């Protein structure tokens, strides 16, 4: 199998995400975001600060990473947990093909349930300035790509991927990121905000350039995918629980 993507794995992935209850949570978060945007618009009209807080505080910091977490762990963890990933691995398919095919589905979910709602919310909040919504959507795209790969790597490394992902988001990015300045170099959330800055013409993060953030996101995506594939190549699966 020399193809880079396997439509079968992707198809199975789509069924896996939307066939379980996880799928419901995926719909709830963007609805909340767009609903809040509409409410804020109704309350204060076209206000830059309120719109910025909404898209940054709820969109980039909460909705995008949670959508990525739910979608990605839903693609990897259940199959690893109950051993049915053996059916994907006991095939002459390259491991990076399997990883990429699943990641494509995860990225698709991140776009559909993260990036598009951010764009829509941005347009609802500030219809006079489409670049605003577009900028945040770009940041959400970068964040979604990186988060998905990060959580995919977590899923193949640990059985408690969801909890570790939450700890990363709550403690590293939110708590410590608010307290310590240095965290911004190593925080996917900060990078996504830095990427949104030039296009949306706002200031969200201090002393973090968009250029660095783009490179950092690409590095995470490439190296994360490679590491995940490597781990799947050497995957231990015994018969017992």
């Amino acid at each position, binding site marked *: 199998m020399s193809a880079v993507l396997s439509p079968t794995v992707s198809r199975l992935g789509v069924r896996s995400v939307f066939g379980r*209850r996880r799928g419901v949570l995926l719909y709830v978060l963007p609805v909340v975001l767009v609903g*809040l945007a509409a409410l804020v618009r109704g309350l*204060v009209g076209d206000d830059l600060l309120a719109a910025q807080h909404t898209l940054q505080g709820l969109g980039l910091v909460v909705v995008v990473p949670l959508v990525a977490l739910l979608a990605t762990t839903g693609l990897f963890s259940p199959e690893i947990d109950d051993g049915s990933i053996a059916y994907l691995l006991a095939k002459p398919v390259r491991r990076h093909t399997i990883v990429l095919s699943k990641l494509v589905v995860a990225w698709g979910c991140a776009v559909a349930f993260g990036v598009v709602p951010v764009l829509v919310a941005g347009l609802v909040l500030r219809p006079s300035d489409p670049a605003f919504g577009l900028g945040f959507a770009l940041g959400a795209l970068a964040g979604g790509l990186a988060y998905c790969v990060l959580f995919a790597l977590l899923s193949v490394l640990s059985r408690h991927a969801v909890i570790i992902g*939450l700890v990363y988001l709550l403690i590293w990015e939110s708590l410590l990121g608010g307290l310590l300045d240095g965290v911004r170099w190593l925080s996917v959330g900060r990078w996504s905000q830095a990427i949104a800055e030039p296009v949306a013409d706002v200031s969200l993060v201090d002393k973090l350039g968009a250029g660095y953030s783009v490179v950092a996101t690409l590095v995470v995506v490439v190296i994360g995918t490679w590491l995940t594939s490597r781990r799947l190549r050497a995957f231990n699966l015994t018969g017992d629980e």
Partner: protein
Amino acid sequence: MSSPPEAPASRSAVIHDLGYRPYEGPRLGERAVARALFVTGLRNSYGLGRSARSKAFPMILLGLMLLPALILVGVLVQAKTLLGLSEQIVPYSTYPLTTQLLISVFVAAQAPALFSRDLRFGTITLYLARPVRRSTYVLMRLASLATATLVLVGAPLLLLYAGGVLAGLPLGRETLRTLGALVGAVLLAACLAGIGALVASLTIRRGLAVAGIIVVLLVSYTVVSAVQGIALDSGHEQVGVVAGLFSPYTLVQGVEVLLFDAPQATPTPPSGVGDGVLYLLVTAAVVLASVALLLARYRRVRT
């Protein structure tokens, strides 16, 4: 193989029957089973009666909840005259709101242990094979979770109270305030336990249950506080008041502000009788609805 316990005693020799004997004596009824379920659930939530590893997390959370209270008490005792403090630095009713992340994490960690685990491993069949009704099982589990959460929320309040009294704050006033805050703690524990149990019973995967509860509790508070902030700034306070109904923390805070005249801790607390009735009704509705949905969910579980 059981045989009659008569022993062919011959002179000084006796054969004891050590085989299986069925139990014919009195048996305790459903009430004892329910009590046992409740007590075990409560103990297990703090890791008592289980391995050391399962004690670590809840005890650490309890410690983290008590730590700020301890510091506040210390400051109050030492620097009362210096700083001219005449009341608690952080009011009793505000303390749970400030430490809500810890409380949410506790509920998110323990609700799946009490609800998802039995569903995942099928041990629910064993429970229901005993003389206990489905509804009793569910209610007792819920009660354990609520009581465990109440301990977590209430312990620092008692610590603050003790410290305040020791520091010489007026006893009557502090007692009343603490009692009001404890009532609020009971309501908060009931709401959080209901929501947590409901989410946990919907999935058998523990990680997803934990994530689900955290998402529900955290996102609701983030959205509500954002809306309240904007509502206050833009002069539409009533919108903020209504928004406060959508997160258990702000909901209970609102009830305390109205019933016990607690100091306000949210941008747009409820005011007036209309708001008060609304807040009380919604609190009752949250608790009752989560119980009803939980019972309905367990009625559909196949054993």
